[in-house]
């Protein structure tokens, strides 16, 4: 069964390996070659597609991603500060295609879990033996009054790197010296827990050298945040935090920091007690699983429940969900987590398609944050799988934060390794 005609298929694949690929379409499990469709070309999807081809050359892998280019959220804060270019966080899929992955740029409109088919806006249908979905996050529009996708063009979230990253950067560049930048981070759980605070740090770095009379106001929906002690220590050292001249002010939820509304016309946000005016406003709305997860019926609550050994959906068999959209507790929603989950998932998919029992997984995550020049911090955790609880548990006695007494030299090395991590993870995803 196939609904891809030859002409369409040639258009999609560029004419590569048509014979072998079509031969596999005849039935679901009858042919020698198995078919996996990966949807979403970010940290999870790109990695899963690549590693599947590395693990089993007899699997035909199709990667469907709406956009021609991917912009990484990680290191996008350095684009805001001008430390790096927008181009440096932009990646294409050419090298994955060269590995034999069929890369299709189209929007997925539906997954039929019974028929095992994926349909797209472009009018194509793809059969699969197993499907891996990595849809990322979507925003809970309506959670903050007056803030929707339209307003976000002017008051950007920039929490999916892309054009809004450029908008926010350009707004910072255009801002007067002495202006106020408001950053409003969401409640948990959300993509990249230390991200808003690294963003404040990077913007402070830009302002310190370019608009030193300016301020950053973090209006938080939480009373504590990731790596807080290390961020505050760095802000004290670099940006005068806690003094009258502090470049950064953090207002916790308990202090009235949680914002309830946005007034785009007045360039103000409404907190529980008072309203705050900003010259540049960055609202990071609360989040839920990406749209495709909802379309495909993979969501329970706001995230996708999975078997954490294989990342197979507990709702629909043969569909696996990885990355930010999956409920992969206790891993955080990070680029590193998605990259590792993709490998655990790809190994399980390769095992299952070859009638082997999936092996034991191993997981880890390291989140670097660059607070300023030569100043990096990190949190690192190694995890094991607890089969009884279906939980990804931290290995006891391991992992943790950069020590508070880390030397200047150690912090500099961490910033170098943060950049090494960026180059390596993006090469691991797209190379």
């Amino acid at each position, binding site marked *: 069964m196939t609904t891809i005609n030859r002409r369409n298929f040639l258009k999609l694949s560029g004419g590569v390996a048509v014979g072998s690929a079509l031969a596999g379409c005849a039935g679901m499990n009858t042919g020698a070659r198995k078919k996996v469709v990966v949807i979403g070309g970010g940290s999870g999807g790109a990695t899963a597609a690549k590693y599947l081809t590395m693990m089993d050359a007899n699997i035909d892998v199709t990667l469907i991603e709406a956009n021609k280019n991917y912009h990484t959220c990680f290191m996008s804060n350095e684009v805001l500060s001008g430390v790096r270019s927008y181009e440096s966080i932009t990646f294409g899929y050419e090298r994955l295609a060269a590995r034999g992955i069929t890369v299709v740029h189209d929007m997925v409109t539906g997954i039929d879990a019974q028929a095992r088919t994926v349909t797209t806006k472009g009018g194509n249908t793809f059969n699969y033996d197993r499907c891996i979905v990595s849809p990322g996050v979507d925003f809970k529009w309506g959670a903050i009054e007056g803030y929707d996708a339209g307003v976000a063009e002017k008051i950007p979230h920039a929490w999916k790197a892309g054009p809004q990253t450029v908008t926010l950067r350009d707004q910072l560049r255009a801002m007067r010296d002495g202006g106020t930048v408001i950053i409003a981070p969401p409640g948990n759980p959300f993509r990249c827990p230390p991200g808003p605070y690294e963003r404040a740090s990077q913007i402070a770095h830009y302002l310190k050298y370019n608009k030193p009379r300016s301020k950053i106001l973090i209006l938080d929906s939480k009373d504590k945040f990731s790596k807080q002690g290390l961020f505050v220590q760095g802000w004290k050292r670099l940006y005068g935090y806690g003094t009258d001249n502090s470049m950064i002010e953090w207002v916790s939820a308990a202090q009235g920091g949680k914002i309830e509304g946005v007034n785009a016309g007045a360039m103000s946000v409404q907190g529980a007690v008072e309203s705050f005016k900003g010259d540049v406003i960055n609202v990071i709305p609360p989040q839920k699983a990406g749209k495709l997860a909802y379309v495909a019926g993979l969501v329970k609550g706001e995230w996708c429940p999975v078997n954490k050994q294989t990342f197979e959906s507990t709702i629909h068999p043969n569909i696996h969900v990885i990355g930010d959209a999956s409920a992969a507790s206790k891993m955080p929603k990070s680029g590193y987590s998605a990259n590792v989950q993709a490998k655990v998932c790809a190994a399980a998919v390769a095992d299952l398609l070859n009638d082997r029992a999936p092996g*034991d997984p191993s997981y880890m995550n390291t989140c670097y944050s660059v607070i300023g020049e030569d100043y990096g911090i990190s949190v690192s955790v190694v995890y094991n799988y607890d089969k009884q609880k279906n939980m990804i548990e931290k290995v006891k006695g391991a992992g943790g934060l950069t020590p508070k007494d880390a030397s200047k030299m150690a912090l500099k090395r961490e910033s170098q390794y943060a950049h090494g991590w960026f180059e390596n993870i993006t090469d691991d995803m797209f190379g």
Partner: protein
Amino acid sequence: MSLKLVTRLILVGGLTGSSLALAAGASPEMLSQTCAACHGTNGSSVAYTPSIAGNSEEYFVDTMKAFKSGERKATVMDRIAKGYSDDEIAKMARYFARQPMKPMRQAYRQTQVSLGKELHFEYCNKCHEDGGKKADDGGVLAGQSIIYMQHSMEDFKAGWREAPKKMRKRVKAVMEAHGQQGIEALLNYYGSQQ
């Protein structure tokens, strides 16, 4: 009875049952692939972070154990190494030892390369054979991250990482004859091999 032997006996015991995969734990590939986000696909880094492919098993195991015990100072690896058992470390050591190390494409000082090469064959090649490409006791140096090697030399000097007696003597001799510039020249020579 050593812990390793106990583990082995438990493993053998497990093999007689049906839960072979369970007793074996995560595979070498599975464990090792989680390192790639920092150390590169299959352990060959493309920037800054050290490549860990192509080292001898012994070197990998010794390094991880030194991180684990705190004997070798680190930025993140001390925290990470504590998450793995000796058996898991041995598996990763085997995996990475089999991966060819792809030299890092990185900037280096061309003007220092010839002096570095000269010094290498005078002082270092006896252990770091074939211009630093071979790694029996130590890490692969040819094509290794220059920044990482600079960190390592700082660590040896400060006593944050233990250098073999032979190496301490040789480094001292280079320093006496050429100063810090000699060390820099060596690292640029290794980094130039791409």
